């Protein structure tokens, strides 16, 4: 695999026994808590939810949807940048072309599976990570391609989308 030389060990994130970095874990949990706090109990979160719920009504409330969306995009981009930092300094310890491991796409799937709520996100993210880590063994043990985990994740999300859609339709009729 192409990529840069590994960084000197001083630049690696400190890690415990089996390659778990306490700093990375703490960062992830802080990001989760901060996102929940911003969305639930700040003015910014309220405006974001208003714009997402109904852009034309939020204009009448004196909000600027473009500005709110730009803020949200910038915050999300910052968090994605943090994820990239962890990939480089905590996981691979060097820069490789496939550094993102498709986590950006995977994050969208996690959010869809959680039906755009925050609480189920850690459990789903953990489940998806288990699938990913487990599938690395597939080519060695069963001689099948490791992308099986992606197929399972996609099937999960598609089935969930259908169930949510069906429920919503039943709710609107009954």
């Amino acid at each position, binding site marked *: 695999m192409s990529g840069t030389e590994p960084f000197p060990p001083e630049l690696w994130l400190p890690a415990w026994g089996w390659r778990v970095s306490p700093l990375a874990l703490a960062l992830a949990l802080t990001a989760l808590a901060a996102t929940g706090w911003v969305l639930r109990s700040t003015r910014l979160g309220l405006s974001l939810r208003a714009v997402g719920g109904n852009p034309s009504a939020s204009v009448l409330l004196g909000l600027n949807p473009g500005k709110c969306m730009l803020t949200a995009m910038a915050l999300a981009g910052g968090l994605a940048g943090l994820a990239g930092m962890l990939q480089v300094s905590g996981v691979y310890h060097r820069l490789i072309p496939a550094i993102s491991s498709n986590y950006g*796409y995977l994050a*969208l*799937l996690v959010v*869809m599976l959680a039906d755009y709520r925050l609480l189920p996100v850690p459990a789903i993210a953990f489940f998806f990570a288990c699938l990913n880590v487990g599938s690395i063994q597939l080519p060695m043990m069963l001689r*099948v*391609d490791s*992308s*099986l*985990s*992606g*197929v399972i*994740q*996609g*099937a999960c*999300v*598609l089935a969930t*989308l*259908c169930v*949510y*859609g*069906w429920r919503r*339709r039943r709710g609107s009729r009954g």
Partner: protein
Amino acid sequence: MGELSLAVLLAGVLAGAAPLVLAVMGETVTERAGLINLSLDGTILLSAMGAFATAYETESLAAGFAAGALVGAAVAAAVAVCSVYWRLSQVAVGFVLTLMCRDLAYFLGNPFSRLPGPHAGPWAVPFLEDLPWAGEVLFRQSLPVYGSLLLVGLTWLYLYRTRWGLELRSVGEHPRAAYARGMNVRRLQFFYAVWGGVLTGLAGAAFSLCVKPGWGRPQGAEGMGWIALAIVIFGGWHPLKAALGAYLFAFLQVTGVSLQGIWPSAPAQVFQTAPFPLMIFTLVLVHWTRKGRLRRWAEGRRWIGPLARFLHVSPPRALGKSLPG
């Protein structure tokens, strides 16, 4: 790359753009009917794998192309059923399917990777190939290239010169009015989604059987579906302008390869990735022409005015909205 003749360059552009043109025409028809099929990227890979595997097993190119079309139709039908009949979010379903199909293609295609298989070579048109310049550019290509060139004209004719095309556009512009005029909006949308899926599947088959023969991980067609989606917007949902966009993109890719021969010192990644940011830049330009103030500024100027009018596009009015109730 010393003697880079224009004819060779143009022939390369036509050949390289063939799958892209197929996919772009399919998506143009689907979006004109008001439906967004976001699963293009995964569909292309899955149908490329299906086409190659079928052609490898049966040793028949026709069976390969048929398998590709079938795979594309199946994925498009899934998107259409979910969004038209079950009214799920088109974007969400398409996005999940694009990721799932890509992984499914890698998973199922694993036994076929890096195998030498059949591929569609050039097939010169008798008599016409001897034409002095046009023969070299146009008539010594492979079958998918001829197909893609014909398809551009046929799609334009269908959309703007037939009654069915008028109905298709009216469904995308104002589904309620179309419904009131007695059209079965849902059935039409489903039909045109599958139509687009068939063409996308053929695009995938054209990749694995003609342009980039063989299957592997990566295949080389990754990202093409997203580019096709961008080109549909660039082309303003008009088949001729969209085809122009596809050829422009292929031209950038081909010149990238030859430019690399001229400047070997520049890193290879620059020329591989340059078409993608250029595409984003053109989309930004297209967006700017929608702003009234900029349009008025551009109107009076000699060069910018016509360019702005050419770039100015508006989507089908009901694009992405399913028929309520």
